[in-house]
């Protein structure tokens, strides 16, 4: 298990070195998107439209934060369960998405997409919404404001802590981590 500090956008070199079980601290910009936002992104691609943010080297965080109280950029912001995004993730990876952050297992299509596109799946601690919120320095809505908690936001993060669950070489922490 190694520890890395990475800055967005991620490169192939950043991703290739990562192995399942590694701890990574992410700084830079990550984009929030969950169920409804993913559906809209893929619908936009079907219509041949441009996406509201650049997928190249990007990290998507599966999260629907609570509303920000006064004086804070965002409310609680822990990961949501990832499998619901499995239907959309391979297509986004094929267009340059380098990583997603969530919790729980991915299906075989997603794992194959990670290998094919040199991408990675990170886990963050589920339920640690208040703790992870402290690593988010700014939040700005970039698309689908009408979706409320599901709108796409650009988050500026500083040393956001994640663990590599599925790496780009076929490794999976949920399989190897049994006691």
């Amino acid at each position, binding site marked *: 298990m190694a520890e890395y500090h990475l800055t967005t956008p991620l490169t192939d070199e950043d991703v290739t070195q990562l192995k399942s079980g590694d701890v990574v601290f992410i700084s830079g910009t990550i984009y929030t998107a969950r169920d409804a936002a993913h559906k809209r992104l893929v619908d936009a691609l079907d219509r041949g439209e441009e996406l509201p943010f650049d997928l190249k080297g990007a990290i998507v965080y599966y999260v629907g934060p609570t509303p920000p109280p006064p004086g804070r950029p965002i409310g609680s912001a822990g990961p949501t*369960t990832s499998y619901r995004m499995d239907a959309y993730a391979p297509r986004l990876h094929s267009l340059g998405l380098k990583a997603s952050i969530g919790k729980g297992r991915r299906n075989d299509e997603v794992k194959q997409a990670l290998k094919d596109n040199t991408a990675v799946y990170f*886990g963050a601690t589920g339920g*640690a919404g208040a703790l992870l919120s402290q690593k988010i320095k700014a939040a700005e809505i970039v698309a689908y404001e009408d979706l409320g908690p599901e709108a796409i936001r650009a988050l500026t993060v500083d040393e956001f802590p994640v663990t590599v669950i599925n790496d780009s070489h076929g490794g999976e922490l949920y399989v190897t981590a049994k006691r």
Partner: protein
Amino acid sequence: MRTIQRDTVVDAVAKLCIDANRYLPADVRRAFEAAQANEDNPVAREVFRQLLENADLAEESGLPLCQDTGLAVLFVEVGENLVVEGGIRDAINEGVRKGYAEGFLRKSACDPFTRANTGDNTPAIIHFDLVPGESLKISFMAKGGGSENMSRVTMLAPSQGFEGIKNFILDRVAEAGPNPCPPILVGIGIGGTFENAAILSKKALLRELDDTHPDPEIAAKENELLGLINDLGIGPMGLGGKTTCLAVKIAMAPVHLASLPLAVNIQCHSARHKEVTL
């Protein structure tokens, strides 16, 4: 006949919503600390360290423990000699509306097909029980989607007995794996009818984590299931370890002679709930 003012109920429910989402229950904190001390796996210990830090931060900052502040589920015991001015259901929904707005909690209630958000986390899921007397007991649970999605109801054949019940529960927990935010709580409803079993399984989750079932035979079954689930080795967040489950709670009801309904309601580690008696 006793009358309770509407605002009393509205304010009490709003406070339950905010407090349950902000403060980790004392029994859950005790369970985290005990489990952390019991883990040999450094990754598992680190997860508990983060969860305890998260609880402290939520308390200090006022942020909710988790971004999924849930659908509002309420179990309400209404005294038969009690009236709530203006109607109890309406007062509870108004309390949920108020609590989720004032506590900066996420509104997660939406239309099943259009997925359009109702905007205020109502209608709440309310289960009423009529009881003797003139008091009003309201238990609130914030039920997140991630853990709720891992829950199941099944109709076993009576011949399957406890072995069948055990196998179904273990398969369900293993299949859920890391998805529902382990270490989980497992609420089990046995008997009654299809819908009754489901409600029992959720109601069982209101019990204190470290209590003991009053029937020693059921208590022994709860302990056996807890041991078997922890032997799966899923661990906190699915990253391996001894603690996959913090508690198993069984609730039962008499059943049709042809039936053995079983419901497994999985709850996330934070087990956010709170109650008040008015």
